């Protein structure tokens, strides 16, 4: 409503976008530089590699979240989905020797199925997204618990560990980082240069208008939630490969759902829908990873990390929307 009215015409869009991405790059580089001056260990290749690798899991989840928010939805169930996929893939690999390609297939299928469930509940049964994904949050978390049956993943086969940490063909860049680049490129193309992306943004801007213009709103909604589930589960697989571990609190324990919303918004996606910034999301996730690692190097007590995240959300969203007492 008023959020749409406050948005300036299309002319201001590119400049605004460019600024958000440039600001993120500048702030990230500046904070890395400052920490590097205090503690030169921060700027070693090894550590920067770690910072990048560390941001991959959240970035992949947040890309799905970006699509959902662009459509004026929200997906809280990404955290338990990520944990469920990490647990299922990890346990199958650990105790049944599931090959890596099999794990990829299982993660993608799981995400697609459960994401579609979210989509059907939201789009076909008209349950508000926050309620739907709050409900499936408990459901998926429960599934993880039941599946794990009290066990946890603490060792994965070498192929998994190599996929999660080393680079392909001896490259110095870890495979997950390359995968993230591919996924980001795909999301960027889908959102900005495809019919599907325009439909997503149209639904986010004004669902009723999109419907009247002939878009299949229900189908688009289901597809976007399915994609979000798919990416969340894929990131769970990356997580278990990268860390070699998974427990019942993987994903939910770190509040990945809140973090993914935070980085999507910091990246320049509007909570009111209709505008998304895929590259911004990834840069914001990289920024978060940089800051969190820097805090360790600066020996800041860990208790203040989440306060920093909270401030980051409020500062990033400030001015994005001007709307008092809107819908949840």
């Amino acid at each position, binding site marked *: 409503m008023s959020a749409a009215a406050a948005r300036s015409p299309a002319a201001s869009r590119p400049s605004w976008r460019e600024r958000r991405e440039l600001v993120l790059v500048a702030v990230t580089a500046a904070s890395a530089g400052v920490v590097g001056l205090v503690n030169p260990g921060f700027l070693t290749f090894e550590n920067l590699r770690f910072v990048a690798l560390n941001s991959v899991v959240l970035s992949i989840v947040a890309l799905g979240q970006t699509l959902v928010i662009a459509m004026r939805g929200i997906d809280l169930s990404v955290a338990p989905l990520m944990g469920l996929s990490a647990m299922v893939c990890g346990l199958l690999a650990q105790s049944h020797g599931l090959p890596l390609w099999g794990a990829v297939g299982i993660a993608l299928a799981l995400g697609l199925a459960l994401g579609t469930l979210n989509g059907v509940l939201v789009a076909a049964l008209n349950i508000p997204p926050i309620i739907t994904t*709050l409900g499936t949050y408990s*459901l998926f*978390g429960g599934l993880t618990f039941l599946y794990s049956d009290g066990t946890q993943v603490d060792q994965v086969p070498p192929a998994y560990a190599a996929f999660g940490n080393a680079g392909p063909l001896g490259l110095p860049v870890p495979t997950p980082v390359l995968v993230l680049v591919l996924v980001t490129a795909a999301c960027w193309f889908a959102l900005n240069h495809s019919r599907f992306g325009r439909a997503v943004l149209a639904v986010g801007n004004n*669902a009723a208008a999109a419907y009247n213009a002939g878009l299949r709103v229900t189908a688009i909604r289901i597809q976007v939630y399915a994609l979000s589930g798919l990416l969340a589960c894929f990131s769970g697989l990356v997580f278990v490969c990268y860390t070699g571990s998974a427990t019942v609190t993987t994903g939910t324990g770190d509040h990945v759902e809140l973090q993914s919303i935070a980085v999507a918004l910091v990246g320049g996606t509007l909570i009111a829908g209709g505008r998304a910034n895929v590259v911004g999301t990834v840069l914001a996730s990289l920024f978060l990873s940089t800051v969190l690692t820097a805090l360790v190097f600066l020996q800041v007590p860990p208790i203040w990390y989440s*306060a920093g995240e*909270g401030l980051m959300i*409020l500062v990033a969203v*400030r001015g994005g929307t001007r709307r*008092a*007492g809107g819908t949840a």
Partner: protein
Amino acid sequence: MDMRAPANANAVTPRNRRRLPVGGWELALTGLLAAVVVGFGAAAPGFYTGPASLLGLTENFLPFGLVALGLSLVILTGGIDLSVGAVASLSAVLAAQLWSRFGVDIWAAAAVGVALGGVLGLVNAGVILRLGIEPLIATLGTSFLYGSAAVAAAGAEPPSGFPGGFTALGTGTVDGVLPASLAGLVPIQLVVFAAFAVLFSALVARSPFGRVLVMVGYSPDAARYSGIRTGRVLVTAYAVSGAMASLAGLVLASYYDAVRPDMGDVLLLTAITMVVLGGVSIFGGEGTVAGVVVSVLVLGFLRQGMLIAGFSDMVTTMLTGAILLASIAVKNLFNRRGTGLANQIWAMIRRPEPPRANPS
């Protein structure tokens, strides 16, 4: 059916004045409550071992209900408060620290805690109104801030071992005031919850403030144009939600005889489930406190019954989520005017309805 009645259903006419604030949804929930209690009483040995045990079970879930009461005001305005868990933790931890570090009387410290909750709610409202940030994101952000502050305030060894009078708040029963035959029967928590339930129900269904609250949620623009100071209404709603959350945190502290910086985290999801299952529309402007009270009892007894029947905590949580989704889906199916369920399903398959203009 009150469920689809517009806000002006609360208009003061002699007929409405006499009517109880209950509708079809509340009655359905009451039936469900009876089914849950009788069902578990028959099927789960240990669920019902006398009236005292049944009433005693409520001590395990009434803090959730206190949060739900405050939260229902916020949700009626069309907002949401995700910070209730962190507010509960922070106020309980600070009150406990006031008592243990500074020797403040425990009841005075508790009062400070509740006041602090109100202030944190004011901060939420300030962030929403002054900075123009949507309630969902604003309270998400503040919940991180409050949570960090709670961890910092708790320190390595959070206080525990409160005086006996204070622990009675969470685990004691009302004696002396009631007839001797009821001694040891009615938990203090239940009395506190009942008092607030009556208060909030009267506030929403009978007071001018309640009417304004529902109107703001039903249509913020219409409310503003009719001269209502919507900002004030929102500020009050968030402050009350914060105060109720910290009261719940203090009851939890009393119940466990200790505080932890993450003790409030469990409150949020269940409290939202209680409010929404109680029939309050997540878009605001629709719902009754009576419904929320019954749904608190339904979900609470269901959860306790499943735990007693031997289900694990996670399975119980999972089922709570499923119930939430199923109830809203069923409500949506029946809520559209005039036609039966089968017609609705058929209509959905044949021709999807145009979506709402702004589903969030």
